[in-house]
């Protein structure tokens, strides 16, 4: 090409990034890599190959960890944990800062390596992945520095097993390792088998940064290695980013193990464009939403919802924009869309488009495409109904699916019509509208007039089948810490058995359940007699079954939306009012508790319950969100949103306080609660609904069931319309609940066979509030 030719054509021409240094780094290891265990590399084996998806050429040979090697890695992490956790925050901060600087110093090598291994455009690995990874370490160096002063009540979890995906290999590593190390944990991390190289380079950086031996261990391999980590008994925490299917398996595999778990899974995130949006900017935002990283992004804006009146206009602008996207060699600096990660992935995307595309209108621009390699053209499928397969299923490729809506309410309904809940975008020049819609979307992250903005200062993570837990921000630290508290053994507590010769007095009292604001007989038609330890018949309580749970959840769901919309001040008022009415009947409740338990601390329990109601009445309008300082002109608002419908198994040992301790934080934060009362001592709870009835609690906000916890727990945990299950039952139902919760991947909070002193401050506080809320980060750029 001569100057003259180009002067006429005004083409861009090639602008290739030089891969020589990255290839040299691989060659320097003879093209083979071992595992990084206890600060050094094991001898490499030729177990599997890592390939460049743009060309199909082999980059390196990698080692697939054996069970013994995983054991060795976990053992190294275990040995390193104590000393690492005991180091001062400042010492850990220095090492994290060194890692941040080393990533910056090796930015180009990391970026090129990432692009070679993954196929993503060099622009993205250079301008997004690598700088964000460095930023994550730098940010968490700060968190390590501040941990002692700002989080004095939190302790590290121990050894974290971390399994990351192939779409952002280095960045996901940073999201996992940085907070774990900052809080004093040690890690065993498995990169995805397609993309291990940047993690292995990072291992070398750990050596240079003088990360103590065993604090970071990196084991390579496929899913079977991940399974070894998940199943490993010496691991305290599993953090997984990847597909919903694998996430579900991990939830089941870790159920009842006591391992902490965070899951960041799939999505089908809505991208909502209102008629008053800046349409050209909305179109450009779609480029970042769905053609970023070839659409292989869990939070990709893959469902375009356009207001009907502007749909045609928007689609024509979008198609014109798509025609200017450049697909090709990911190492070329002028490429927008690189290669999908693997032929398997390409085939999957093609098959989905072939299978579901006919339900709408498929548009692909006539762009030049490389002849070989895993390339897929940018694709728009418009005219899809929400019922279309492609509007429901995650494609994980450069394919945008579109439909229209009429009104704000319509937009919210369609946006939330999904099993997922990771991210969303809202485009409107009217911030009244945008800030009305954003919190109504079922998504952990919402971008107003933007898409795919990330920063270490703002939490990222989802709800529903997109998983649970947050990464980044203050909220992300709870994924790697636990409250400092002594572990008390759980003592199973059975109902008082019927005496040989029981005595009853007074008029027969049969307690009912409390569902949707009404006193309800149990569906089963069975009741159980409640005896005092002295052989006195205190009354009967219904035996709740799955239908009672169903009815209670339905009532809770109906009530939850408007309860959440009530002001914090009103919720607080109602909690105070409950306390007031309970106080008026304190003697009666104290007597009842003493009669059931045979103890004499009934009045202390009642007074504590009143105080606890005050605590959450106080919190109702004070559990403020945060305004995160993210690097945009604008802020990210970390809002504390209610989880939704919370089903809880109340503590058995504290008949009234156990109920109040879960009910009050749940409703203070805007949730509706379905609570199974103390199994052996249910009558304080059933007396308590009379207090609720006189305290202006809206029908359905609190629902009280009685009966056997193990009968109701599974129904609660498996119920698809329950958003979280808590168990403080003296029956250890942790495994059962966590296993059943895998169905819709609801959040769980179970006692793992540990007891809690409900009369102490351990029975209340921020931990409860955190479990009663989802942190939703709403990014609000501004500017005129």
């Amino acid at each position, binding site marked *: 090409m001569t100057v003259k030719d180009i002067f006429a054509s005004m083409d861009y021409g090639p602008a290739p990034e030089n891969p020589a240094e990255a290839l040299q780094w691989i060659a320097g290891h003879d093209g083979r890599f071992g595992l990084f265990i206890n600060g050094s590399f094991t001898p490499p084996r030729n177990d599997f190959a890592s390939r460049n998806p743009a060309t199909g050429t082999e980059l390196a040979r990698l080692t697939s960890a054996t069970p013994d090697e995983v054991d060795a890695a976990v053992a190294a992490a275990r040995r390193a944990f104590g000393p690492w956790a005991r180091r001062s925050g400042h010492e850990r901060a220095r090492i994290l800062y060194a890692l941040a600087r080393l990533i910056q110093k090796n930015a180009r090598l990391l970026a090129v390596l990432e692009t070679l291994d993954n196929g993503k455009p060099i622009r993205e690995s250079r301008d997004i992945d690598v700088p964000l990874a460095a930023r994550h370490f730098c940010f968490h160096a700060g968190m390590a520095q501040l941990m002692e002063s700002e989080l004095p009540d939190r302790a590290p979890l121990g050894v974290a097993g971390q399994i990351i995906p192939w779409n952002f290999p280095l960045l996901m590593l940073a999201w996992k390792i940085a907070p774990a190390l900052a809080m004093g944990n040690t890690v065993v991390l498995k990169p995805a088998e397609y993309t291990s190289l940047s993690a292995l380079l990072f291992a070398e950086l750990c050596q240079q940064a003088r990360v103590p031996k065993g604090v970071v261990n990196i084991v390579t391999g496929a899913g079977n290695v991940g399974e070894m980590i998940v199943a490993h008994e010496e691991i305290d925490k599993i953090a997984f980013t990847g597909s919903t299917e694998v996430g579900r398996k991990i939830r089941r595999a870790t159920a009842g193990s006591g391992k902490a778990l965070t899951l960041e899974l799939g999505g089908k995130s809505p991208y909502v464009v209102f008629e008053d949006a800046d349409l050209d900017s909305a179109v450009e935002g779609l480029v970042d939403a769905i053609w970023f990283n070839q659409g292989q992004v869990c939070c990709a804006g893959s469902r375009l919802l356009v207001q009907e009146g502007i749909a045609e206009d928007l689609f024509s602008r979008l198609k014109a924009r798509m025609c200017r996207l450049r*697909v090709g060699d990911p190492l070329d600096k*002028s490429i927008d869309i690189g290669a999908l990660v693997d032929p398997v992935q390409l085939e999957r995307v093609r098959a989905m488009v072939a299978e579901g595309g006919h339900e709408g209108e498929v548009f692909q621009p006539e762009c030049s495409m490389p002849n070989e390699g895993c390339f897929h053209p940018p694709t728009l499928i418009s005219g899809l109904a929400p019922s279309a397969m492609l509007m429901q299923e995650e494609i994980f490729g450069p394919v945008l699916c579109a439909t229209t809506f009429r009104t704000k309410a319509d937009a919210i309904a369609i946006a939330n019509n999904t099993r997922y809940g990771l991210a969303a975008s809202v485009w409107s020049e009217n911030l009244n509208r945008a800030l009305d819609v954003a919190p109504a979307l079922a998504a952990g992250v919402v971008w107003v007039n933007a898409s795919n903005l990330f920063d270490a200062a703002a939490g990222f993570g989802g709800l529903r089948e997109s998983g649970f837990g947050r990464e980044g921000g203050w909220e992300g630290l709870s994924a790697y810490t636990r409250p400092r508290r002594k572990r008390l053994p759980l003592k199973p507590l059975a109902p008082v058995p019927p005496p040989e010769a029981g005595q009853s007095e007074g008029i027969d009292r049969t307690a009912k359940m409390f569902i949707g604001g009404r006193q309800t007989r149990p569906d089963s038609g069975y009741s159980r007699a409640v005896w005092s330890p002295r052989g006195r018949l205190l009354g009967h309580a219904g035996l709740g079954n799955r239908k009672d749970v169903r009815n209670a959840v339905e009532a809770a769901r109906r009530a939850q939306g408007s309860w959440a919309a009530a002001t914090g001040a009103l919720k607080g008022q109602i909690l105070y009012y409950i306390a007031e009415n309970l106080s008026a009947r304190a003697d009666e409740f104290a007597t009842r508790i003493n009669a059931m338990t045979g103890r004499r601390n009934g009045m202390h329990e009642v007074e504590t319950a009143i105080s606890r109601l005050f605590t959450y009445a106080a919190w109702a309008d004070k559990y403020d969100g945060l305004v995160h300082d993210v690097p945009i002109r*604008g802020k990210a608002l970390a809002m504390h949103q209610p989880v939704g419908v919370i089903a809880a198994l109340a503590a058995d040992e504290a008949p009234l306080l156990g109920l109040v301790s879960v009910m009050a934080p749940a409703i203070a934060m805007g949730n509706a609660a379905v609570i199974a009362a103390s199994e052996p001592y249910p009558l304080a709870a059933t007396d308590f609904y009379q207090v609720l009835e006189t305290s202006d609690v809206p029908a359905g906000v609190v629902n009280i069931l009685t009966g056997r916890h193990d009968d109701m727990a599974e129904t609660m945990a498996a119920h698809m319309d329950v958003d979280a299950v808590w168990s403080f039952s003296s029956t250890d139902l942790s495994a059962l609940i966590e296993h059943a919760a895998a169905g819709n991947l609801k959040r769980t909070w179970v006692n793992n066979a540990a007891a809690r002193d409900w009369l102490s401050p351990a029975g209340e506080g921020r931990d409860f509030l955190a479990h009663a809320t989802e942190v939703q980060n709403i990014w609000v750029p501004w500017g*005129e």
Partner: protein
Amino acid sequence: MPSSITTSHGTGRPPDARSGSPAHDDRLPQVHLPRNEGLPLDLDWVMRAEANTSAIARRVAALPGRRSLKKVHQAAWLLRAITLIDLTTLSGDDTPDRVRRLCAKARQPLRHDLLRALGMEGTRITTGAVCVYHEMVPTAVEALRGSGIPVAAVSTGFPAGLSPCHLRVAEIGESVKAGAREIDIVISRRHVLTGNWQALYDELREFRAACSDAHMKAILATGELGSLRNVARASLVAMMAGADFIKTSTGKEAVNATLPVSLVMLRAIRDYEARTGFKVGYKPAGGISKAKDALTYLTLVKEEVGNRWLAPDLFRFGASSLLGDIERQLEHHVTGAYSASWRHAIG
């Protein structure tokens, strides 16, 4: 180039490069395109125009990282940039000889040996136009006679546009009579700031009529319009009133051409073309002094409206010092050594 849109508009060569015609005297800025006739003010359309500042800032911030021009491509694009410059002098101390000097530079913007080394011998490389105040128009016209380079006159009470209306209209006529082929008019910013779009439209209509066959380049003075939304709306009104070009700035405002403003104006141009079929030109002016910046602007144009706009009939840089930096970069391309300003002829 993956785009089917851009290629459908033709090769994007400037008229001279295509024809190689020596008959430059009759070269008009828009020989091959129907001239924008304008249309009645469509306020619904104007008021629906939105411009989201943050999103626009993100787009332009990411753009230089999304497109990269290397080596021979960079050189070719810089040569093209030269042909798109309105070489400008708008100083109170301009004299006829100073303007003649500038015109000579416009005819011969790049050293012969560099042109030869770039393999561009026989291809006429001149700047897009020479832009002066009215008093200097006859001098410039005379100095450029036979070159095919049009003379542009700034007009209508430039730069503030606050002289009596009839004088502003008369000024256009005088400059046209003096031989200016392009009139760079300034709008009344107050009409934008008070939302009086009708007044803006009427004023521009009157200017356009006064321009007659000369082309009207409407300077919006975007640095004084308060918001990108106003820039978008003023751009549409100017085009509805028949502007042949819309231009950012006089060069005298505190903020002149910027990438965000350019993105907004280019999108308005694209929107206008989509609805009316008329291609309107774009001229960023003021503050573009580096070759690298010029490449970013050209990339933005190519990405947003396509190759057809990378020609002097649809795009100009209003710049006085840009040419010098391009000359240095081209010498660097040819020799591999960084250049110095005194090695290149001044204008």
